[in-house]
């Protein structure tokens, strides 16, 4: 029937336009990922310098700092979820959200109350739809985060960590984001950011170089005071950059698969359309022949 053929043709056309879109998304992601990785690499000297300095202070002095101390005056804990602003990245957002759900469940099982901080529109809409209260949301730069955004997130979270229990202070900060392992592998990861565990940052001194005995200017406590918030910000920035690179890699891969699937569909529909056309022709011929036969007899 002509109707059947028309439907197949329509499907082929719409799949073709989808395919073009997938292809474009794939190319855009592929072109941006290089930049995202460059930014990851160029942020590392700063991170290295900070980490080195923090470990130097930590090994040379026994100063205590609010950011290093466990808080037991509140059961509220903060969770920062770093997801993407847009979809079309396969399971990228879904897997960090799932990891977050698992973390929240565990924390709530320990009798803690979770305050959720979110970066990325996908995660925001997920939790808004489920009616969950969000402490703060940042959107708009998930695939190219700036250091200003990291600064803003870090200062919000540090304020929350510093605040009184009555003003919504939190005792811990966990970050759920995606670690960029390589182009084909990105893993959701959970980091407990605050209170800081300096042990983690202490670089083992090489065999021949002992960490030097530093003079602190003006004094160790104040140096630590200046360093730790920066350290937190750097770690958050690093998470954001890794998440951005992961998002783009996931998107490129998802869109590549989508393009291939669209091609498969187009092939299938073309075959079906040809078959329908052939069937129609056969039917018409048999109608004509049988009509002629009827007249002849």
């Amino acid at each position, binding site marked *: 029937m002509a109707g059947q053929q028309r439907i197949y043709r329509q499907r082929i056309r719409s799949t073709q336009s989808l395919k073009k879109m997938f292809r474009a998304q794939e190319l855009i992601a592929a072109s941006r990922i290089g930049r995202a990785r460059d*930014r990851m690499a*160029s*942020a590392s*000297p*700063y991170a290295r*310098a*900070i980490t*080195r*300095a923090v470990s*130097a*202070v930590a090994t040379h002095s026994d100063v205590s700092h609010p950011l290093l101390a466990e808080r037991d005056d509140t059961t509220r804990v903060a969770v920062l979820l770093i997801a993407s602003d847009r979809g079309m990245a396969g399971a990228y957002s879904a897997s960090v959200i799932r990891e977050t759900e698992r973390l929240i469940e565990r924390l709530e099982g320990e009798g803690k109350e979770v305050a959720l901080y979110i970066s990325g529109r996908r995660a925001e809409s997920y939790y808004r739809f489920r009616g969950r209260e969000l402490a703060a949301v940042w959107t708009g730069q998930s695939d190219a985060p700036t*250091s200003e955004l*990291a600064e803003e997130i870090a200062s919000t979270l540090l304020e929350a960590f510093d605040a009184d229990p009555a003003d919504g202070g939190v005792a811990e900060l966990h970050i759920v984001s995606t670690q960029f392992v390589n182009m084909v592998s990105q893993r959701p990861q959970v980091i407990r950011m605050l209170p800081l565990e300096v042990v983690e940052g202490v670089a083992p001194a090489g065999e021949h170089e002992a960490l*030097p*005995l*530093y*003079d*602190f*200017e*003006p004094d160790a406590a*104040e*140096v630590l005071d*200046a*360093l730790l918030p*920066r350290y937190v*910000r*750097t770690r958050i*920035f690093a998470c954001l950059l890794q998440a951005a690179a992961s998002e783009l890699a996931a998107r490129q891969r998802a869109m590549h698969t989508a393009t291939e699937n669209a091609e498969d569909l187009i092939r299938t529909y073309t075959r079906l359309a040809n078959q329908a056309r052939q069937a129609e022709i056969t039917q018409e011929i048999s109608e004509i022949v049988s009509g002629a036969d009827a007249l002849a007899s």
Partner: protein
Amino acid sequence: MAQLEVDLVDTDGTIWSGDARQVSAPASDGEIGILAGHTPVLSVLRRGEVRVIEAGGTVHRWSVEGGFLSVDGDQVTVVVDAAEAVASGTSGR
């Protein structure tokens, strides 16, 4: 004369890196000047101007927003929140 290995970095990357004769920076309680052979120091920086003087006498200046400075042997790392090149010398970034 021994040279200092200087790295000036901010959150987005390395701004300047190379050998220099002298580095001066705005420490929390006054200008600090570093020459080769300085004792290891970790210092908080406030807003002000960082100057790096190369062996040839070329001076690079940046106005910075604050950060910190670490001297370790002859390795000087200046970590700043934001830096802007002052006058000529380098384009900064």
